[in-house]
């Protein structure tokens, strides 16, 4: 995984898979929930991201089943995917901590 910042759809897909395998529609719904309703992944975007993440070894297919006449393929996070997600979360936390510290400085400057 390159050290460049992860794009939001990628982050949301990986985060949606963090607690277990999911199929396409469940991933779209979970990504919407995780983003507070802000991001609704298009189906084409989702499967393009899944293709790429599979090629990078971050996600793997985890079984298929037919439910109500519809084919569902499940996807799961690989160990490399979990590591990449952890790194991104750590990066986001570091940025948030930095921003928080700056805000505290601003507040202290304003009070002085």
């Amino acid at each position, binding site marked *: 995984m390159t050290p460049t910042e992860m794009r939001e759809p990628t982050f949301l897909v990986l985060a949606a898979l963090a607690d277990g395998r999911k*199929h*396409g*529609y469940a991933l*779209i*719904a979970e990504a919407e929930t995780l983003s507070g309703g802000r991001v609704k992944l*298009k*189906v*084409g*975007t*989702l*499967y*393009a991201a899944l*293709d790429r993440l599979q090629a990078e070894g971050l996600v793997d297919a985890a079984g*298929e089943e037919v439910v109500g006449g*519809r*084919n*569902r*393929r499940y996807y799961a996070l690989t160990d490399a995917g979990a590591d990449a997600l952890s790194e991104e979360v750590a990066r986001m936390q570091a940025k948030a901590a930095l921003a928080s510290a700056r805000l505290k400085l601003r507040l202290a400057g304003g009070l002085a």
Partner: protein
Amino acid sequence: MTGVRRGARERRYRRALQFYPKRWRDRNADVVLSTLLDVADAEGRRSPRVSELLQLAASGLSTRLAVSISRRTRDQASTIAVATGALLAIAFAVVQGLPAPSPLEWSSARGFGPFLSPAIVLYSLWMLAFVLVLLGQRRAAKIVLALCLLAPATLWITRRSIEGLWVGPSLQTLVFLTMLAVLALLGTPRPTRWTGAGMLIGAGALVIAFRTIGAPAKSYMDEGTFWRLVASPYNLGTALAVLGVVVFSFIIAGRGVWSKTLFLSFVPWIAAWSVSVIMQFRWDGTAWLLAGLLAGIASRVLVRASRRSRSDADAVR
């Protein structure tokens, strides 16, 4: 919902999935279709949204492209295209003079505001795209590059409708920058720490070459001078032949990605060279020979791509 309506909805989705390559469809079409239907059901829709179909078409075409040209190759070609576009934009803008020299006493043309040519709009877009790429603003850069793709045709149409009022840009420049924009949009530009410096050195070298080789025309030079003198059909044809040997060497050396990148990067130059040759020789035998040669190469590439696609599909079965 009736079975007929459900069938029509499914058929429209399946039709949109035809944009994906066959090999991809064999593996994924049923799964993707099920997700599309799940989403439509959840939203209570009886038919696909137009935006959904357009997005599937774009994604499918992008997947087709990825099958024939790897992402790394496209990204490298895209980076070279953005740097080349900015390089020429700076060189042309400097050489032509900003703003215009004393109001075009040698011509009946009016100029474009304080500038000599409306090409300044196109050059500014390329410079802006390059700066955005260097700043890592990929989304904004793509939007500006999309404008770089549309601007040449718009300038050409506008210029033809007000013949004689503007100087340039030349057809070679417009064709070249259009092809560069296509290349730039095929991938994601990923500049290294040397990209900015390399582009500025290249632009400086080009301005010097422009001034030196174009010395006889020193009183006034437009960007068309570049295609007539610096990158004349003879000079550019020789350079392309030499670079062709380099690509061949890369292929022999097993450097597939770089040979493809270089070949893709040649395409705008080949297009500009073709326009120059056709303009110089008009539609005489040479131009027809060139057109036939290019058509032959294009057919050969298409046939090979088609065969490769079929063999990929066979491999999956």
